[in-house]
């Protein structure tokens, strides 16, 4: 595996301060390697967006990062902790190194400015020597990159379809050739056909330009196709991390299996869709032990009392936080491990 480009180390994010604070992201560590697609999946409310906003210091109040580090490794030069940068340093790093395509892509464009203005202002902000002509040329190039006719440059956002707007956002994210693009549910609001088109295009662009992607979605089946590695989030924690094939073939955490069974696969064999019973945990009243245990079909003795740590089971290429995979955790642990390899 190539060198890391972005390392999240023990990141925690709270909403609110003092006794009213709820912890939406708990001690999350993730590593994004240069050029790879890392998928992050989890039910809605599991803290995916909070993680994305927290690591880029875009958290709206009352959100605060309560601990951890986010280390960015520039192509050349020493690693920097994003959380420790001052304002000008942070502004400089933003978009030129790490860009973001947001969940609410429909509203990500400023309604009162033309598309070209919004593509150019970011170039201008980061490249003081650029001229209006050079910026416009670059904007046109970007539009072609995502397959939009350049006569759309002078359109206002409301004159574009949802799919086009999302492509403009992708074009914008690539404007400064960043090393990392974070995508938070970039296609959730689009219909399946449009979703398909955009993801195909994204894969091509990534191949061509070599940026790394942190792709966030609640739809695990989508990630399976798209990502190199996948991390599964539940109640603000990473509960499983593995490469995409492994995770699809052999999910170790019962929650991962539940997620896989919640969405139809875009391609390949059909799984029976069952979903996960119950609802996501209330951050204000997290269950004791493993946060998933009240919903877990395979919960056993230690689950309600002790919190499992994220650790590698037998082999070292993946990790999971589940008592089922801790040898000797409970009387029934040994024989259940074999049966978790539930294939569809």
């Amino acid at each position, binding site marked *: 595996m190539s060198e890391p480009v972005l390392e999240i180390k023990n990141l925690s994010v709270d909403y609110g301060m003092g006794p009213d604070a709820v912890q939406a992201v708990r001690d999350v560590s993730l590593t994004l390697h240069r050029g790879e697609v890392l998928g992050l999946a989890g039910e809605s409310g599991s803290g995916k967006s909070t993680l994305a906003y927290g690591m880029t210091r875009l958290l709206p109040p009352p959100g605060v990062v309560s601990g951890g580090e986010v280390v960015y490794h520039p192509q050349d030069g020493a690693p920097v902790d994003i959380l420790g940068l001052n304002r000008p340093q942070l502004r400089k790093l933003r978009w030129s190194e790490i860009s973001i395509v947001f969940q609410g892509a429909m509203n990500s464009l400023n309604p*009162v400015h033309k598309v070209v203005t919004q593509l150019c202002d970011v170039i201008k902000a980061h490249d003081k020597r650029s001229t209006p002509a050079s910026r416009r040329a670059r904007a046109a190039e970007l539009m072609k990159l995502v397959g939009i006719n350049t006569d759309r440059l002078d359109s206002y956002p409301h004159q574009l379809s949802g799919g086009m707007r999302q492509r403009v956002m992708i074009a914008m994210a690539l404007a400064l050739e960043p090393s990392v693009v974070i995508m938070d549910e970039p296609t959730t609001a689009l219909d399946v056909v449009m979703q398909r088109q955009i993801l195909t295009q994204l894969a091509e662009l990534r191949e061509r330009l070599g940026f790394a992607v942190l792709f966030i979605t609640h739809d695990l089946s989508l990630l399976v196709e798209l990502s190199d590695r996948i991390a599964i989030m539940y109640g603000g924690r990473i509960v499983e991390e593995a490469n995409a094939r492994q995770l699809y073939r052999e999910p170790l955490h019962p929650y991962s299996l539940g997620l896989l069974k919640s969405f139809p696969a875009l391609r390949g064999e059909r799984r029976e869709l069952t979903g996960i019973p119950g609802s996501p945990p209330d951050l204000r009243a997290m269950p004791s032990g493993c946060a998933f245990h009240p919903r877990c079909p395979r919960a056993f003795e230690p689950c309600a009392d002790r919190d499992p740590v994220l650790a590698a089971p037998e082999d070292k290429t993946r990790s999971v936080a589940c008592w089922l995979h801790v040898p000797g955790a409970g009387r029934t642990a040994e024989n259940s491990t074999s049966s978790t390899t539930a294939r569809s």
Partner: protein
Amino acid sequence: MSYLLRRIGFYLFTAWAAITINFFIPRAIPGDPVQSMVNRAQGQIDSNAIHSLYVLFGMDTDQSIFSQYFEYLGQLLRGDLGLSFTFFPTPVSEVLGDSLPWTIALVGLTTIVSFVLGTGLGVLVGWRRGGWADLVLPVTTFLSSIPYFWLGLIAITLFAGDGGAFPSSGGYDPGVTPSFTWDFISSAVLHSVLPAVTILITSMSGWIMSMRNMMVTVSQEDYITVAHAKGLSERRVMVSYAARNALLPNVSGFAMSLGLIVGGTLLMEIVFSYPGVGYELFQALGAKDYPLMQGIFLVITLSVLVANLLADVAYLALDPRTRREG
């Protein structure tokens, strides 16, 4: 464009309706201006003269109401608003010509300054919550809650009269004649300070409040987060993204308040005996000077309509979503 044409059509219709109502209302009100004039003259006017007075005021009882109406419309088109009773025989248009500039200059300028300052403060207060900015709103809200009449009287007591720096009434010193001389202009400016400042104090908090609220709403929009993520400077995000969008409702409010310049400052002009339209309206009401009242109402109505049109144009110019074609 067709949208704008439709709006203009609508305003023309409204203007016509207003003019028509303006014609009928004084005729429907009990009390006859000519008769009250005759009474004041205590029988020294003969019946011929009385009849010609009726004709002069466009209330010729021999004519049908319809021919009176059309005559009235014809006069309006020629800019003839009839003769004022109180300043008889000065034409109403001339009386208005004397008072309008005062109101427009003072209240117009004040309205613009109030809008610019209030909106600017609102942007800052809405953007950086916390710190000194949080004090602006309570203070201005308190000031604006003082009834204007009180504020005016307090201002006069504190800053005018014996030993005060400012004159308490009028538009200029009675000693100077209106002309383009330093004496006159400095006198007029000095007289306008208290009225202007008191209007500013009461009107500005409205702009601050609405702009602040819009800024708070807009700053939660996704495109603001995107603008931050793009690494744009704080200033650029605030001005070109947040304020630019938050401004839209305030701009139409501003256009409306331009329309109220003429009619909306009655109180100020009474408190400061300012020689503007409001003061004139006050006098006209007291004297049952129907032609003058009609003239003033007409000017007020038309300026409100023009302001509405301005608001439409401003919205079209500022918000691309209202420009439907394309």
